C-alpha cells in the first residue's frame, strides 16, 4: 500500500511548490507569469501553515492562511493595476522593457 503522508511529506510538497514558484519568478520574462509564480509561492506557504495546524491540533494556522489569502488578493489587485498602467505606456509586458531607471 502507499505510505501514509507524514508531516514531512506535506512540508516536502510545500518546499517543491515554493521552489517551483521561485524558479518561475527568476526565469520567466512576462510580468503576469511572474505574478502567477508569486501566487504559487504564497500557496506553498499556506500549505505549510495548514499542515502544521493539523499536526499540532490548533486553528491558528487556518487564520493565518485566511490573512495570507486576503493579502494576496490585495497584492494581486495592485500588481495588476500596475501592469495595466505599464502596458498602456509601452505595449510590452517584458520586465526588460522598463529599464529607464537603470544607470
Amino acid at each position, binding site marked *: 500500500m502507499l505510505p501514509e503522508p507524514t508531516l514531512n511529506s506535506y512540508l516536502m510538497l510545500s518546499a517543491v511548490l515554493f521552489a517551483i514558484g521561485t524558479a518561475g519568478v*527568476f526565469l520567466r520574462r512576462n510580468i503576469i507569469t511572474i505574478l502567477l509564480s508569486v501566487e504559487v509561492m504564497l500557496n506553498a506557504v499556506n*500549505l505549510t501553515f495548514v499542515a502544521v495546524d493539523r499536526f499540532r*491540533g490548533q486553528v491558528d494556522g487556518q487564520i493565518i492562511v485566511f490573512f495570507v489569502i486576503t493579502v494576496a488578493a490585495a497584492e494581486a489587485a495592485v500588481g495588476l493595476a500596475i501592469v*495595466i498602467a505599464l502596458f498602456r505606456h509601452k505595449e510590452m509586458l*517584458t520586465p526588460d522593457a522598463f529599464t529607464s531607471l537603470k544607470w
Partner: protein
Amino acid sequence: MDALLFWILAAGAVTASVLVIGQRNPMRSVLLLIVSFVALAGLYVLLGSPFAAVIQIIIYTGAIMVLFLFVVMLLNVPTEEIPIGRAARLLGGAAPRRFGAVISAVLALELFWAIGRMTVLNMPGGDVKPTEVHDIGVRLFRDYAFAFEATSVLILVAMVGAVILARKEPR
C-alpha cells in the same frame, strides 16, 4: 484511501505548477494555476480544514484568478517573449537566466536537505475531525481582531490604489 488521495492531489498540484511556469501562453498559465489551487484546496480538506479549502476556492480561484483572467484577456497578452534593445539582451539573455536557474535549484536543494534531516513526524492518527467554523470565528475575532481590522484597511487601500493606478490619464 487518504494516502492515495494525498499522492494524487500532490502530483496534480506539482504538475500544474510546473506547467504554469513552463507555458508560453499566459492564458493557459492562469487556467493551470486554477487547477493547482483546486488541488491544494483538496489537500486542505484532507488535512481537516474545510474552511481554509472553501476560502481558498472562493477568494483565490473565484476572485483573484478571475481578475488575472480579465487582465490577460483585455490586454491580449502576447505569447512570444520579444527582447528589445541592447539593455534587454543583457538582462534577458542567457547568463541571467542561467544564474536564476542556479539560484532556484540551490534553494530547492537546501529546502530538501533541511526537511530530509528532520525526524519523521507522523500526523495524529485516526479520523480527521474537520475544524468547526465556530472555533475559527472565536479565535479570529478575539485574538486576531487587530489583524482583522488592519487587513480590512489594507484591502481598502489596495482598492483605492488599484483604481487610481489603472485610471486613464485625463488628456
